[in-house]
């Protein structure tokens, strides 16, 4: 059977992609950030999964205001990186895993999650920047990726509790797939940042640190945190962090005791407007 081996959490700041695409990763501004991902790239080499279930949010790219799915699962075979206005990122196309994606969709819809199935969409920096951070520049991503887009743009966005429970349902779904695949679940976005209004540039290191601590040790209670706390304390775009709870809910201990092993933890301010947080948790 398939199994979830680990979860990865990372910010997905567009400027990080730009820095990599323009070869600026060694510059003083960027070097401290990328050095925090050196260990992660080695870890990815040692722990390449067959499939990444990549939770991210679309930033008004694939979904305009015509249609806004709360949860959309990519069941297609390929997903092209989008032109977000600055031209397409020079990164490989994303290969999907239609069989596993369809299986997960079927399982979690029967489990009362009202997914939208998407067979064709372009993917933006929310999905490609985490891949770039974890794999570096490459001709082809080394594994399949199932894009899972969460609406965190137009309110109401799904609650942390809903996201956490969805993660648990995804775990059950993966574990009932009858092929021996190693699957990682990634949660992306955050940490504290605000891109709008006179409060733009907000960073809350103390809050972010507590979020990482609780995500590791006490995700169940963290999942109860209301939206307003994210917005007030971590900035309007800090709400993206609810997506990390999907990945966390998919870890083994969410279904029982046993805190996962912290393989890596990193935090850095700033990347453009944003506090960058990063965790790798392994199921033990």
């Amino acid at each position: 059977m398939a199994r979830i081996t680990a979860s990865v959490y990372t910010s997905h700041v567009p400027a990080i992609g730009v820095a990599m695409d323009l070869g600026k990763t060694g510059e003083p501004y960027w070097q401290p950030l990328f050095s925090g991902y050196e260990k992660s790239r080695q870890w990815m080499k040692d722990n390449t999964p067959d499939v990444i279930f990549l939770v991210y949010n679309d930033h008004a790219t694939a979904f305009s205001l015509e249609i806004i799915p709360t949860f959309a699962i990519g069941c297609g075979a390929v997903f092209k990186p989008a032109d977000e206005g600055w031209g397409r990122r020079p990164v490989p196309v994303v290969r999907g895993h239609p069989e596993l994606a369809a299986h997960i969709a079927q399982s979690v819809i029967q489990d009362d999650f009202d997914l939208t199935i998407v067979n064709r969409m372009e993917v933006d920096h929310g999905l490609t920047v985490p891949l770039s951070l974890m794999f570096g520049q490459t001709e082809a991503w080394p594994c399949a990726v199932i894009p899972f887009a969460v609406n965190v743009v137009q309110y109401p966005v799904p609650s942390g509790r809903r996201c956490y429970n969805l993660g648990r349902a995804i775990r059950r779904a993966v574990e009932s797939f009858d092929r021996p695949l190693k699957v990682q679940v990634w949660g992306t976005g955050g940490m504290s940042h605000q891109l709008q209004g006179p409060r733009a540039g907000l960073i809350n290191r103390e809050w972010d640190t507590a979020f990482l601590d609780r995500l590791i040790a006490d995700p169940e209670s963290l999942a109860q945190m209301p939206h307003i706390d994210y917005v007030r304390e971590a900035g309007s775009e800090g709400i993206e962090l609810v997506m990390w709870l999907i990945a966390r809910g998919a870890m083994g201990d969410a279904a029982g005791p046993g805190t996962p092993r912290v393989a890596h933890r990193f935090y850095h301010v700033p990347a453009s407007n944003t506090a960058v947080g990063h965790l790798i948790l392994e199921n033990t």
Partner: protein
Amino acid sequence: MALEKPYKDVPGTTIFDAEQSRLGYWLNQFCVSLMKPENRARFKANERAYLDEWAMTEEQKQAVMARDLNRCIALGGNIYFLARIGATDGKTYQQMAGSMTGMSEEEYRDMMLRGGRSIEGNRHFGENGDAQPHRQPQGKAGRVVRGEEA
């Protein structure tokens, strides 16, 4: 509407809810159109003519032409949509975000390098943080306006 909106009490912050989305529908859909290179070119060639193709209010069109992102947001725009305008102008997210604070590009960048804007005083209206209405615009521009600096 009887649903609560606790997020109305966060200074310097507009939450893009259904009400804002309805207000800004065509403004945001205009922004979406800028994802196509040919539309970016047409917009750049004649902003007014391109904007007139959209069912936007005159206020929204003026705010776009003035690149007044705070005003665009007040009129229903969302930053991820509005970012297409910035992209068309070759601006980064940092330049766009900074423009909404009144700070110069350098002032905003330096604030970020120092660890970003502090949360203290910026949680609720009525506190005294730098994002509060009575402290706008921020940076040197604001100090000059308020007579604190020449």
